Protein backbone atom coordinates (compact mmCIF):
# COMPACT_ATOMS: atom_id res chain seq x y z
CA UNK A 1 0.00 0.00 0.00
CA UNK A 2 1.36 3.36 -1.04
CA UNK A 3 1.31 6.30 1.40
CA UNK A 4 -2.15 7.93 1.29
CA UNK A 5 -0.78 11.43 0.63
CA UNK A 6 0.20 10.56 -2.93
CA UNK A 7 -1.37 10.65 -6.36
CA UNK A 8 -0.65 9.36 -9.83
CA UNK A 9 0.46 11.91 -12.41
CA UNK A 10 1.49 11.65 -16.01
CA UNK A 11 5.15 12.59 -16.39
CA UNK A 12 5.97 12.26 -20.10
CA UNK A 13 5.43 9.83 -22.95
CA UNK A 14 8.90 8.30 -22.34
CA UNK A 15 8.51 7.89 -18.59
CA UNK A 16 4.75 7.40 -18.40
CA UNK A 17 3.18 7.92 -14.99
CA UNK A 18 4.82 8.66 -11.64
CA UNK A 19 3.70 8.93 -8.03
CA UNK A 20 3.70 12.41 -6.45
CA UNK A 21 3.27 13.66 -2.89
CA UNK A 22 0.10 15.67 -2.25
CA UNK A 23 1.38 16.77 1.18
CA UNK A 24 4.74 16.85 2.87
CA UNK A 25 5.95 13.35 3.79
CA UNK A 26 8.68 13.60 6.42
CA UNK A 27 11.93 11.67 6.39
CA UNK A 28 11.50 8.38 8.26
CA UNK A 29 7.97 7.77 6.96
CA UNK A 30 7.20 4.38 5.47
CA UNK A 31 6.16 5.40 1.94
CA UNK A 32 5.15 1.92 0.78
CA UNK A 33 4.63 -1.43 2.44
CA UNK A 34 3.48 -4.85 1.31
CA UNK A 35 -0.24 -5.14 2.04
CA UNK A 36 -2.98 -7.75 1.78
CA UNK A 37 -3.94 -6.68 -1.75
CA UNK A 38 -0.53 -6.80 -3.43
CA UNK A 39 0.24 -9.66 -5.81
CA UNK A 40 3.12 -11.91 -4.76
CA UNK A 41 3.85 -14.11 -7.77
CA UNK A 42 6.11 -17.09 -7.24
CA UNK A 43 8.26 -18.31 -10.16
CA UNK A 44 5.88 -21.28 -10.57
CA UNK A 45 2.84 -19.01 -10.69
CA UNK A 46 4.54 -16.78 -13.28
CA UNK A 47 5.19 -19.78 -15.51
CA UNK A 48 1.47 -20.61 -15.49
CA UNK A 49 0.49 -17.15 -16.69
CA UNK A 50 -0.13 -16.56 -20.40
CA UNK A 51 2.85 -14.88 -22.13
CA UNK A 52 1.03 -11.53 -22.39
CA UNK A 53 1.92 -10.83 -18.74
CA UNK A 54 5.70 -10.93 -19.19
CA UNK A 55 5.88 -7.25 -20.21
CA UNK A 56 3.60 -6.13 -17.40
CA UNK A 57 5.58 -7.97 -14.78
CA UNK A 58 8.95 -6.79 -16.01
CA UNK A 59 7.71 -3.18 -16.18
CA UNK A 60 5.78 -3.02 -12.91
CA UNK A 61 6.89 -5.76 -10.52
CA UNK A 62 10.06 -6.08 -8.47
CA UNK A 63 11.83 -9.25 -7.43
CA UNK A 64 12.40 -10.32 -3.85
CA UNK A 65 15.52 -12.20 -2.80
CA UNK A 66 13.40 -15.39 -2.87
CA UNK A 67 12.60 -14.79 -6.53
CA UNK A 68 8.95 -13.80 -6.05
CA UNK A 69 7.71 -10.97 -8.23
CA UNK A 70 5.73 -8.38 -6.29
CA UNK A 71 3.18 -6.45 -8.32
CA UNK A 72 1.70 -3.65 -6.23
CA UNK A 73 -2.08 -3.60 -6.44
CA UNK A 74 -2.23 0.21 -6.31
CA UNK A 75 -0.31 3.17 -7.75
CA UNK A 76 2.76 1.88 -5.89
CA UNK A 77 3.53 0.04 -9.11
CA UNK A 78 4.17 3.41 -10.82
CA UNK A 79 6.96 4.57 -8.49
CA UNK A 80 9.89 5.43 -10.76
CA UNK A 81 13.61 4.96 -10.25
CA UNK A 82 16.02 7.75 -9.38
CA UNK A 83 19.74 7.53 -8.65
CA UNK A 84 19.01 10.10 -5.93
CA UNK A 85 15.73 8.65 -4.69
CA UNK A 86 13.31 9.98 -2.11
CA UNK A 87 12.87 6.49 -0.62
CA UNK A 88 14.98 3.38 -0.21
CA UNK A 89 14.00 -0.20 0.59
CA UNK A 90 14.11 -0.92 4.30
CA UNK A 91 13.64 -4.58 3.51
CA UNK A 92 11.79 -6.39 0.72
CA UNK A 93 8.40 -5.34 2.10
CA UNK A 94 8.95 -1.71 3.12
CA UNK A 95 10.19 1.56 1.60
CA UNK A 96 11.23 4.46 3.81
CA UNK A 97 11.55 8.18 2.97
CA UNK A 98 15.24 9.06 3.25
CA UNK A 99 14.53 12.79 3.08
CA UNK A 100 11.53 15.06 3.47
CA UNK A 101 9.33 14.75 0.39
CA UNK A 102 7.60 18.03 -0.42
CA UNK A 103 4.09 18.46 -1.83
CA UNK A 104 4.24 18.01 -5.60
CA UNK A 105 7.54 16.14 -5.45
CA UNK A 106 7.81 12.75 -7.13
CA UNK A 107 8.36 9.69 -4.94
CA UNK A 108 11.22 7.60 -6.27
CA UNK A 109 13.05 4.41 -5.35
CA UNK A 110 16.44 3.04 -6.25
CA UNK A 111 15.72 0.06 -8.51
CA UNK A 112 19.28 -1.10 -7.84
CA UNK A 113 17.85 -2.52 -4.60
CA UNK A 114 15.14 -4.52 -6.37
CA UNK A 115 17.10 -7.43 -7.86
CA UNK A 116 16.61 -6.27 -11.44
CA UNK A 117 16.71 -9.12 -13.93
CA UNK A 118 18.14 -6.77 -16.60
CA UNK A 119 20.50 -3.82 -16.69
CA UNK A 120 18.46 -0.63 -16.88
CA UNK A 121 19.74 2.41 -18.79
CA UNK A 122 19.12 5.44 -16.60
CA UNK A 123 18.57 9.03 -17.61
CA UNK A 124 17.07 10.15 -14.33
CA UNK A 125 18.98 13.44 -14.45
CA UNK A 126 19.90 13.27 -10.77
CA UNK A 127 23.36 14.53 -9.87
CA UNK A 128 25.45 11.37 -9.66
CA UNK A 129 23.22 9.41 -12.04
CA UNK A 130 24.82 5.97 -12.44
CA UNK A 131 23.68 5.72 -16.13
CA UNK A 132 23.20 2.01 -15.63
CA UNK A 133 21.14 0.50 -12.83
CA UNK A 134 21.91 -3.13 -12.12
CA UNK A 135 21.26 -5.92 -9.69
CA UNK A 136 24.85 -5.80 -8.40
CA UNK A 137 24.77 -2.06 -7.60
CA UNK A 138 24.71 -3.02 -3.93
CA UNK A 139 28.38 -3.99 -4.23
CA UNK A 140 29.18 -0.30 -4.82
CA UNK A 141 26.22 1.48 -3.23
CA UNK A 142 25.49 -0.76 -0.27
CA UNK A 143 27.38 1.15 2.40
CA UNK A 144 25.75 4.43 1.41
CA UNK A 145 22.26 2.90 1.27
CA UNK A 146 22.75 1.46 4.70
CA UNK A 147 23.76 4.81 6.20
CA UNK A 148 20.77 6.55 4.60
CA UNK A 149 18.28 3.92 5.70
CA UNK A 150 19.54 3.85 9.30
CA UNK A 151 19.51 7.64 9.53
CA UNK A 152 15.94 7.74 8.22
CA UNK A 153 14.74 4.92 10.45
CA UNK A 154 16.07 6.76 13.50
CA UNK A 155 13.22 9.25 12.87
CA UNK A 156 10.58 6.64 12.11
CA UNK A 157 9.01 6.42 15.55
CA UNK A 158 8.59 10.21 15.68
CA UNK A 159 6.64 10.71 12.45
CA UNK A 160 3.12 9.58 11.48
CA UNK A 161 3.08 6.13 9.88
CA UNK A 162 -0.26 5.93 8.01
CA UNK A 163 0.83 2.86 6.03
CA UNK A 164 1.38 0.80 9.20
CA UNK A 165 -2.23 -0.42 9.71
CA UNK A 166 -2.38 -1.74 6.14
CA UNK A 167 0.78 -3.84 6.34
CA UNK A 168 0.58 -7.56 5.80
CA UNK A 169 3.34 -7.86 8.34
CA UNK A 170 2.66 -4.91 10.66
CA UNK A 171 4.20 -6.61 13.70
CA UNK A 172 7.59 -6.75 11.96
CA UNK A 173 7.64 -2.94 11.62
CA UNK A 174 6.19 -2.41 15.10
CA UNK A 175 8.96 -4.57 16.58
CA UNK A 176 11.56 -2.43 14.85
CA UNK A 177 9.85 0.84 15.81
CA UNK A 178 9.61 -0.19 19.43
CA UNK A 179 13.16 -1.49 19.59
CA UNK A 180 12.32 -5.19 19.95
CA UNK A 181 13.96 -6.04 16.63
CA UNK A 182 16.99 -4.70 14.83
CA UNK A 183 16.69 -2.81 11.61
CA UNK A 184 18.10 -5.21 9.05
CA UNK A 185 20.75 -4.18 6.59
CA UNK A 186 19.04 -3.38 3.29
CA UNK A 187 21.74 -5.53 1.70
CA UNK A 188 20.22 -8.62 3.25
CA UNK A 189 17.55 -8.35 0.58
CA UNK A 190 19.84 -7.89 -2.39
CA UNK A 191 20.72 -11.11 -4.08
CA UNK A 192 24.45 -11.67 -4.59
CA UNK A 193 24.98 -11.71 -8.36
CA UNK A 194 26.10 -15.33 -8.22
CA UNK A 195 22.94 -16.61 -6.56
CA UNK A 196 21.23 -16.90 -9.90
CA UNK A 197 17.75 -15.70 -8.97
CA UNK A 198 18.37 -13.08 -11.67
CA UNK A 199 16.45 -13.50 -14.86
CA UNK A 200 13.73 -15.75 -13.55
CA UNK A 201 10.76 -15.66 -15.93
CA UNK A 202 9.98 -11.99 -16.17
Amino acid at each position, binding site marked *: *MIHPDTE*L*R*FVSPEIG*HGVFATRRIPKGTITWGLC*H*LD*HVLSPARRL*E*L*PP*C*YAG*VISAFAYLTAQGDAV*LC*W*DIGRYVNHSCSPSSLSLNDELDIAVRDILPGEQLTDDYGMLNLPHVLQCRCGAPGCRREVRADDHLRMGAEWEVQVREAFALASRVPQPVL*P*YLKNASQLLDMLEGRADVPSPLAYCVPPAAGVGPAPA
Partner: protein
Amino acid sequence: MIHPDTVLQFISPEIGYGVFATRPIPQGTITWAHDPLDQILTPDQVRGMPEIYEEPLARYTYRTPEGDHILLWDLARFMNHSCSPNCMATHYGFEVAVRDIPQGGELTVDYATLYMTPEESFDCYCRAAECRWKISADDAEKLADEWAGRIQTGLLRIGEVDQPLLHLLRDGCLQRACGDHGVPYQLPLRRLF
Protein backbone atom coordinates in the same frame (compact mmCIF):
# COMPACT_ATOMS: atom_id res chain seq x y z
CA MET B 1 -7.33 -7.46 -18.75
CA ILE B 2 -8.24 -4.30 -20.56
CA HIS B 3 -7.71 -4.03 -24.34
CA PRO B 4 -4.03 -3.22 -25.03
CA ASP B 5 -4.85 -0.09 -27.09
CA THR B 6 -5.87 1.88 -24.01
CA VAL B 7 -4.29 4.32 -21.61
CA LEU B 8 -5.14 5.81 -18.23
CA GLN B 9 -5.92 9.53 -18.41
CA PHE B 10 -6.80 12.06 -15.76
CA ILE B 11 -10.17 13.68 -16.45
CA SER B 12 -10.95 16.04 -13.56
CA PRO B 13 -10.67 16.14 -9.78
CA GLU B 14 -14.36 15.14 -9.48
CA ILE B 15 -14.21 12.22 -11.88
CA GLY B 16 -10.59 11.21 -11.42
CA TYR B 17 -9.13 8.93 -14.04
CA GLY B 18 -10.67 7.21 -17.05
CA VAL B 19 -9.59 4.69 -19.67
CA PHE B 20 -9.10 6.02 -23.21
CA ALA B 21 -8.46 4.38 -26.59
CA THR B 22 -5.03 5.00 -28.11
CA ARG B 23 -6.31 3.67 -31.47
CA PRO B 24 -9.77 3.16 -32.88
CA ILE B 25 -11.45 0.13 -31.28
CA PRO B 26 -14.22 -1.14 -33.56
CA GLN B 27 -17.63 -2.38 -32.49
CA GLY B 28 -17.46 -6.09 -31.74
CA THR B 29 -14.01 -5.94 -30.11
CA ILE B 30 -13.64 -7.67 -26.76
CA THR B 31 -12.52 -4.68 -24.67
CA TRP B 32 -12.03 -6.47 -21.37
CA ALA B 33 -11.76 -10.05 -20.21
CA HIS B 34 -11.51 -11.42 -16.71
CA ASP B 35 -7.99 -12.78 -16.33
CA PRO B 36 -5.78 -14.74 -13.93
CA LEU B 37 -4.34 -11.67 -12.19
CA ASP B 38 -7.75 -10.34 -11.19
CA GLN B 39 -8.10 -11.14 -7.50
CA ILE B 40 -11.11 -12.96 -6.16
CA LEU B 41 -11.25 -12.21 -2.45
CA THR B 42 -13.53 -14.59 -0.60
CA PRO B 43 -15.58 -13.40 2.38
CA ASP B 44 -13.13 -15.31 4.61
CA GLN B 45 -10.13 -13.53 3.11
CA VAL B 46 -11.84 -10.17 3.52
CA ARG B 47 -12.69 -10.96 7.15
CA GLY B 48 -9.00 -11.71 7.72
CA MET B 49 -8.03 -8.17 6.73
CA PRO B 50 -7.84 -5.28 9.21
CA GLU B 51 -10.96 -3.10 9.37
CA ILE B 52 -9.12 -0.26 7.67
CA TYR B 53 -9.40 -2.19 4.38
CA GLU B 54 -13.14 -1.49 4.22
CA GLU B 55 -12.54 1.78 2.40
CA PRO B 56 -10.22 0.53 -0.38
CA LEU B 57 -12.35 -2.58 -0.85
CA ALA B 58 -15.52 -0.51 -1.21
CA ARG B 59 -13.83 1.81 -3.62
CA TYR B 60 -11.91 -0.56 -5.85
CA THR B 61 -13.70 -3.90 -5.79
CA TYR B 62 -17.10 -5.09 -6.88
CA ARG B 63 -19.14 -7.81 -5.24
CA THR B 64 -20.44 -10.92 -6.94
CA PRO B 65 -23.79 -12.44 -5.97
CA GLU B 66 -21.74 -15.12 -4.16
CA GLY B 67 -20.26 -12.41 -1.91
CA ASP B 68 -16.73 -12.46 -3.30
CA HIS B 69 -14.93 -9.15 -3.81
CA ILE B 70 -13.34 -8.86 -7.24
CA LEU B 71 -10.30 -6.60 -7.49
CA LEU B 72 -9.32 -6.01 -11.11
CA TRP B 73 -5.57 -5.78 -11.34
CA ASP B 74 -5.20 -3.30 -14.20
CA LEU B 75 -6.63 -0.11 -15.73
CA ALA B 76 -10.01 -1.79 -16.10
CA ARG B 77 -10.61 -0.74 -12.51
CA PHE B 78 -10.71 2.89 -13.69
CA MET B 79 -13.44 2.46 -16.33
CA ASN B 80 -16.14 5.03 -15.68
CA HIS B 81 -19.88 4.66 -15.83
CA SER B 82 -22.01 6.01 -18.65
CA CYS B 83 -25.76 5.64 -19.19
CA SER B 84 -24.89 5.27 -22.88
CA PRO B 85 -21.80 3.09 -22.59
CA ASN B 86 -19.68 1.94 -25.51
CA CYS B 87 -18.79 -1.32 -23.75
CA MET B 88 -21.23 -3.85 -22.36
CA ALA B 89 -20.50 -6.62 -19.87
CA THR B 90 -21.71 -10.11 -20.70
CA HIS B 91 -22.39 -12.74 -18.06
CA TYR B 92 -19.32 -14.66 -19.18
CA GLY B 93 -16.42 -12.62 -17.87
CA PHE B 94 -15.87 -10.30 -20.81
CA GLU B 95 -17.01 -6.96 -22.20
CA VAL B 96 -17.62 -6.12 -25.82
CA ALA B 97 -17.57 -2.79 -27.69
CA VAL B 98 -21.14 -2.05 -28.77
CA ARG B 99 -20.13 0.98 -30.86
CA ASP B 100 -16.99 2.02 -32.68
CA ILE B 101 -14.74 3.73 -30.15
CA PRO B 102 -12.63 6.42 -31.82
CA GLN B 103 -9.00 7.05 -30.98
CA GLY B 104 -9.04 9.24 -27.87
CA GLY B 105 -12.55 8.10 -26.94
CA GLU B 106 -13.24 7.03 -23.37
CA LEU B 107 -14.20 3.42 -22.74
CA THR B 108 -17.29 3.32 -20.54
CA VAL B 109 -19.57 0.73 -19.06
CA ASP B 110 -22.96 0.92 -17.34
CA TYR B 111 -22.26 0.15 -13.67
CA ALA B 112 -25.79 -1.13 -13.22
CA THR B 113 -24.90 -4.00 -15.57
CA LEU B 114 -22.17 -5.04 -13.13
CA TYR B 115 -23.24 -6.44 -9.81
CA MET B 116 -24.65 -3.59 -7.76
CA THR B 117 -26.06 -3.79 -4.27
CA PRO B 118 -28.91 -1.47 -3.22
CA GLU B 119 -26.45 0.54 -1.06
CA GLU B 120 -24.33 1.26 -4.10
CA SER B 121 -26.89 3.53 -5.82
CA PHE B 122 -25.43 6.82 -7.02
CA ASP B 123 -26.37 10.05 -8.79
CA CYS B 124 -25.14 10.20 -12.36
CA TYR B 125 -23.85 13.23 -14.24
CA CYS B 126 -22.62 11.35 -17.30
CA ARG B 127 -24.20 13.86 -19.74
CA ALA B 128 -25.47 11.14 -22.05
CA ALA B 129 -28.77 12.13 -23.68
CA GLU B 130 -30.30 9.05 -22.08
CA CYS B 131 -28.81 9.69 -18.61
CA ARG B 132 -30.93 8.08 -15.90
CA TRP B 133 -29.66 10.53 -13.20
CA LYS B 134 -30.05 7.95 -10.47
CA ILE B 135 -28.30 4.62 -11.00
CA SER B 136 -29.43 1.73 -8.87
CA ALA B 137 -29.54 -2.03 -8.62
CA ASP B 138 -33.21 -1.94 -9.77
CA ASP B 139 -32.19 -0.69 -13.22
CA ALA B 140 -31.26 -4.21 -14.22
CA GLU B 141 -34.87 -5.36 -14.23
CA LYS B 142 -36.19 -2.40 -16.24
CA LEU B 143 -33.39 -2.33 -18.76
CA ALA B 144 -32.65 -6.01 -19.28
CA ASP B 145 -34.10 -6.12 -22.81
CA GLU B 146 -32.39 -2.96 -23.91
CA TRP B 147 -29.07 -4.20 -22.57
CA ALA B 148 -29.49 -7.56 -24.26
CA GLY B 149 -30.05 -5.74 -27.56
CA ARG B 150 -26.90 -3.68 -27.12
CA ILE B 151 -24.81 -6.72 -26.28
CA GLN B 152 -26.17 -8.34 -29.41
CA THR B 153 -24.99 -5.43 -31.59
CA GLY B 154 -21.50 -6.03 -30.25
CA LEU B 155 -21.56 -9.80 -30.56
CA LEU B 156 -22.83 -9.64 -34.16
CA ARG B 157 -19.51 -8.11 -35.20
CA ILE B 158 -17.29 -10.25 -33.04
CA GLY B 159 -15.95 -12.40 -35.86
CA GLU B 160 -15.13 -9.44 -38.09
CA VAL B 161 -12.59 -7.55 -36.00
CA ASP B 162 -9.20 -8.13 -34.35
CA GLN B 163 -9.52 -9.76 -30.94
CA PRO B 164 -6.30 -9.38 -28.92
CA LEU B 165 -8.03 -10.62 -25.75
CA LEU B 166 -9.65 -13.71 -27.23
CA HIS B 167 -7.06 -16.06 -25.70
CA LEU B 168 -8.17 -15.02 -22.20
CA LEU B 169 -11.75 -16.18 -22.62
CA ARG B 170 -12.56 -19.44 -20.92
CA ASP B 171 -13.69 -22.33 -23.10
CA GLY B 172 -17.22 -21.99 -24.33
CA CYS B 173 -17.81 -18.49 -22.92
CA LEU B 174 -18.08 -16.82 -26.28
CA GLN B 175 -20.31 -19.53 -27.70
CA ARG B 176 -22.62 -19.34 -24.69
CA ALA B 177 -22.79 -15.53 -24.82
CA CYS B 178 -23.67 -15.71 -28.51
CA GLY B 179 -26.26 -18.38 -27.76
CA ASP B 180 -27.90 -16.21 -25.08
CA HIS B 181 -28.18 -13.30 -27.48
CA GLY B 182 -29.34 -15.19 -30.54
CA VAL B 183 -26.13 -14.60 -32.43
CA PRO B 184 -25.25 -17.51 -34.72
CA TYR B 185 -21.56 -17.86 -34.07
CA GLN B 186 -20.67 -20.77 -36.34
CA LEU B 187 -20.18 -18.73 -39.50
CA PRO B 188 -18.77 -15.36 -38.39
CA LEU B 189 -16.62 -16.95 -35.70
CA ARG B 190 -15.06 -19.63 -37.82
CA ARG B 191 -12.32 -17.13 -38.58
CA LEU B 192 -11.47 -16.74 -34.90
CA PHE B 193 -11.04 -20.35 -33.91
